[in-house]
């Protein structure tokens, strides 16, 4: 018996793709900071438009609003390299088009999913990466390095671990961000996957979007820790806490985790403290006011991520004068905002996506029986 350590480490990771330098938010350029601001608007506008479309009865399925949680998505994804992987879940619809968006909003070459693809998914059209075979957030695309989730919460984490294990075996140094609600962490698979990743030091970063509610259940009935991040201690891995309303703090904490993982040190958990703005899903908006105290909701929504970002940009001197006073989506509900509250390029971008989706055909019924198995020649 030569060795009892069967860790799946191949040769040392090569740094093949270092197009995105790992920098703390302090070192981000003015343009980058302003881009983060715009991306928050983009994420918010996407959500707002879907809420409106949904209310008008033009969409099937359930919309799990990401309102007030945009900084978690934007901040987490901003520093990733194109070769990194992500696995978003129900509340993360904007993540699909935000991945690698730094490569250019309309750049057809970028790794990631186009707004057209995402809209086709929402509208149930063939242009969706999954040809509308599964709903809403259940998409993905191997080439875009976006892993497909099922509905079963936390079920994507072991898959993510397997994905980066394969990259590691091939000598790559990609990392994967898995997104999860805090409630989902009670699933057994969460434990199995993180334990496995910890043993093999796999670069799996678990982003916990702690929005303080899991459907109609508050955190104190989901886990028994003052800070969820302390769950990491049970695996001997880092557990970071980010201010989920502050896109810069999220960016910094996730980048710390990414660098740690990319250096071969293994997994970590980043708890992003935030608050769910509406009901669990759009079907639940009315009931949510019954199980949540109004002042809790008010307090949870006090620090709109767009406002927090605006304040920082003003402090940094990146936004001033007229520019600082333009576009005020923050603090407003979907019903209250208008297109004027958003930068025109944001409105434009999404409009194009929606138009593309509306023009696309629905899949032919016979596709229902296709692709159960891969056919072998």
């Amino acid at each position: 018996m030569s060795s009892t350590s069967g860790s799946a480490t191949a040769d040392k990771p090569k740094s093949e793709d270092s197009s995105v330098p790992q920098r703390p938010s302090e070192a981000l350029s003015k343009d980058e900071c302003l881009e983060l601001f715009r991306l928050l608007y983009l994420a918010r506008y996407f959500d707002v438009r879907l809420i409106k479309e949904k209310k008008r009865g033009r969409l099937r399925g359930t919309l799990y609003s990401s309102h007030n949680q945009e900084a978690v998505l934007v901040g987490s994804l901003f520093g990733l390299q194109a070769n990194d992987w992500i696995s978003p879940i129900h509340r993360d619809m904007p993540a699909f088009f935000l991945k690698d968006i730094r490569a250019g909003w309309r750049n057809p070459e970028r790794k990631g999913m186009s707004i057209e693809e995402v809209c086709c998914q929402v509208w149930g059209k063939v242009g969706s990466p999954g040809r509308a075979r599964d709903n809403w957030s259940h998409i993905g695309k191997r080439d875009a390095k976006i892993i497909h989730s099922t509905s079963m919460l936390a079920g994507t984490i072991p898959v993510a671990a397997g994905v980066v294990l394969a990259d590691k075996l091939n000598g790559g140094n990609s990392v994967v961000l898995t997104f999860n609600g805090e409630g989902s962490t009670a699933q057994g698979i969460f434990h199995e996957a993180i334990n496995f990743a910890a043993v093999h030091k796999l670069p799996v970063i678990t982003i916990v979007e702690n929005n303080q509610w899991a459907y109609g259940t508050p955190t104190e009935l989901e886990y028994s820790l003052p800070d969820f991040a302390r769950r990491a201690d049970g695996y001997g891995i880092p557990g970071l806490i980010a201010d989920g309303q502050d896109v810069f703090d999220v960016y910094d904490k996730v980048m710390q985790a990414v660098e740690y993982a990319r250096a071969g040190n293994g997994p970590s958990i980043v708890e992003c403290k935030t608050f769910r703005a509406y009901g669990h899903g759009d079907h639940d908006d009315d009931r949510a006011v019954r199980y949540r105290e109004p002042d809790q909701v008010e307090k949870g929504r006090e620090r709109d991520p767009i406002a927090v970002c605006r304040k920082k940009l003003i402090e940094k001197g990146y936004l001033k004068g007229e520019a600082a006073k333009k576009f005020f989506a923050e603090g407003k509900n979907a019903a209250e905002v208008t297109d004027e509250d958003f930068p025109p390029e944001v409105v434009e971008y999404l409009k194009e996506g929606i138009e593309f989706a509306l023009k696309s055909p629905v899949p032919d019924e016979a596709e229902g029986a296709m692709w159960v198995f891969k056919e072998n020649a």
Partner: protein
Amino acid sequence: MSATVTEAPIALKKNYLSALKEALFEEMAGNADMICMGEDIGLLGGAFGVTEGLQKEFGAHRVMDMPISEAAIIGASVGAALNGKTVMAEMQFIDFISCGFDQIVNMMATYHYRTAGEVNLPIVVRGPAGAYGGGALYHSQMNEAWFCHSPGLKVVCPSTPYDAKGMMKAALRDGNPVLFYEIKELYRKREIEEELPVDDYIVPLGKAAIRREGKDVTFVSYGQNVYHCLEAATQLAEEGITAEVIDIRSLVPLDEETIVNSIAKTNRVVVVNEAPMTCGFAGELVARISDSAFEYLDAPPVRVTRMDTPVPWAKPLETYVLPSVDKIVTAAKRVVKF
């Protein structure tokens, strides 16, 4: 079952969901040892509202909001039941039962057997099930066959408010673990609302119901497909073919007698369910019919089931793979002409 509008005050008509809720309230009130466990069943009152008001009435110690842990919900139900409690365990959608699968098939199903009868588990695992609503792969399942294949579990699926209430009560008093498939598309369906008895009643597990009489072909089904069968029967009647519609209601135990008696009369049978075909309960029905009613059969027993696919999201695809009135009519004509 009757969809006719009567003179009775509308308040007395109950939908399928209210019927279930009433059953839970009444059993909780009548059995101080009964508790309920599930995700979001307390504060929220359940994703669909089946447990609405229950926690307020009986307290958080008897109506427990659980972490999102299906396996722990089942396991803890087993422990509480082994120690004297009657437990209602909710799966938020029956699809998620796969996350607690081991605890169901290996722990719960076998406990009575393993202990040679020392321990029995009065547990009802219930949850919303079924397709046709655009729920896609993970909010549309009818996965009852897995559990019919796990000896020690009873498996039931009511299709009317009357049965929903009566079978829920029977299940909670049965003393065995019962998997209770609620059809979410029926929860608030107006057409099937009906008056319920004021007095306590149960619908015994293991008795089928004949929903319509006929002599040319027997439809055997349960859940939503019962309504498809009834509609198909109506259409066929116009062509002079009369179909008998059996709603088995309870899969395990199964009322074979009612089925065989019907086939003895019609000599033809179409079995309908919305689960994937292979190893589904429709196949089991065909196998039992082949065994017990072979001599009566003038045509092969035919299955109308979901194709062997998941339930896709996009509506045309969903419709394509699921059983429908048309498919039942076609199958019926095939066996009648055989």
